């Protein structure tokens, strides 16, 4: 009898917990997982990087339960608007074209430069072949610059194209390229001038999800004000990176 009572008590307890859980919402955070230092997959197979750390901190401050989801860059916006996850933190620059489909928080990464990287100093970045990732502002810029654009699905492939001679140069976010150039042992180098593009990087949400956007917006402001965001930026992008005033 005692056992039955205990079992019933345990059962009702777990049922109660399950019920409570059904009401608390998990925020699913979409990312690409292929864009270090913004986001990448670490040795343990988990999402890691600047955006992972920032996103976890934002969720903690906003008292939200968050879960990370990987998605291909090509279909990252369609899956957001179709509610398969609730946010995108994937090094996505805020642009007017994207704003027509999704809503952005204020930027959590200041507007920065994009840069060309090539295997030799005299690479032709204006009339040659330049690699870029599909559906990025950089690819758009190359297409307008007069150079021949070749597009790749992942950022990694754009750099590989320069290494194996398929492209004369790659055009991407400078912060993505800096560690690659530094670790390449002189094989790769920056060429030409930096190009400022976009309005910084922000978190993308569904346009109808105004409440969640306001929540994240408020926490980002908080983190900008108390300096924690700057500390995080320096940790992932080095001391010379652009920070917030």
């Amino acid at each position: 009898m005692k056992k039955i009572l205990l079992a019933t008590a345990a059962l009702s307890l777990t049922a109660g917990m399950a019920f409570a859980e059904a009401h608390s919402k998990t925020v699913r955070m979409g990312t690409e997982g292929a864009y270090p230092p913004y986001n990448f997959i670490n040795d343990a197979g988990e999402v890691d990087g600047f955006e992972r750390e920032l996103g976890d901190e934002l969720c903690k401050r906003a008292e939200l339960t968050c879960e990370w989801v990987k998605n291909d860059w090509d279909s990252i916006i369609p899956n957001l608007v179709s509610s398969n996850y609730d946010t995108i933190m994937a090094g996505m620059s805020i642009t007017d074209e994207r704003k027509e489909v999704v809503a952005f928080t204020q930027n959590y990464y200041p507007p920065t430069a994009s840069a060309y990287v090539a295997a030799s100093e005299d690479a032709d970045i204006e009339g040659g072949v330049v690699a870029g990732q599909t559906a990025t502002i950089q690819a758009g810029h190359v297409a307008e610059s007069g150079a021949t654009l070749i597009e790749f699905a992942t950022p990694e492939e754009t750099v590989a194209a320069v290494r194996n001679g398929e492209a004369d140069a790659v055009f991407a976010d400078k912060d993505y390229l800096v560690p690659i150039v530094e670790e390449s042992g002189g094989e790769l180098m920056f060429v030409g001038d930096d190009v400022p593009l976009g309005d910084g990087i922000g978190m993308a949400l569904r346009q109808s999800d105004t409440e969640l956007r306001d929540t994240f917006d408020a926490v980002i402001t908080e983190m900008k004000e108390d300096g924690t965001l700057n500390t995080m930026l320096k940790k992932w992008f080095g001391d010379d990176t652009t920070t917030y005033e």
Partner: protein
Amino acid sequence: MFSFCTDPSILDDWFWTACYLTTGVHMSFYMSFLKVLLLLAVTAPVALAFGFGGAMLARARFAPLSWVGKGYIALVRGVPDIAFFLFFVIALDQGIEYLRHKVLCSDWDMPIRQGSDFVVCQAAKMPLGNAAQWVHETYGFALAVFTFAIVFGAFAANVLFGAMRAVPRPQLETAEAYGMSHRQTFWRVLVPQMWVYALPGLSNLWLVLIKATPLLFLLGVEDIVYWARELGGTKTPRFTDYPHPDYRMWYFLALLVFYLLFTRISEVALDRLMKRLTRGQATTGGEAQRRAGA
């Protein structure tokens, strides 16, 4: 994994490789092989069932049924796979959620379509927003199986439709002469004999299916090609304990071996099946078997 893996930078090549190949990401890579095999094991019979159904419909004597079958075959065969995978899966997912929304959240006062957004109430989410990640992955996997089954089912339907027509007419006439009904003729005479005509076409489909699994990543299921690309890419020491140059060639070489091996095993199995199916058939193959046995 191993106790000596705490600081990979000081290890020599063999130990380094052992540690490198047993990291968490590599475990996900190995798991993706099982995932692909499981997908094939589930998809093939389901697609065959779709194909059989489609072929039966296309053959139906009642015209509207036949139009449905022929429409299915023509429509799916005509749409490029990649468009089908991008469009159909999202539409299917939204369709399920729409129905659940209508049933579960009748008091919802906001529109489901808000601009480009598709928003349903929390209880209608499929799977629920707070479900564990593996539930989401299993759901994605099930959608993938279903989509593959529809696409390959259409091709299989066309193959089976042709195979059913290839069975010699005298066989069916003989069955009718014995007084078998239309249904009996179909199940007892036509179906057992058609497989031998269908198998070459079906085996082609099977081999194409084996190689179509990279489409899985469009559905968020991480397959072997995704992992090979991800793991093979150049890794800088800043973000991993195992920095390495571009290893993609080696990873894709491993995939090549896997695919070739798998193709070979399939060929052997299909050959045996063909021999088994040919036995006693009124075809040149069946005749040759009979002579060899006599």
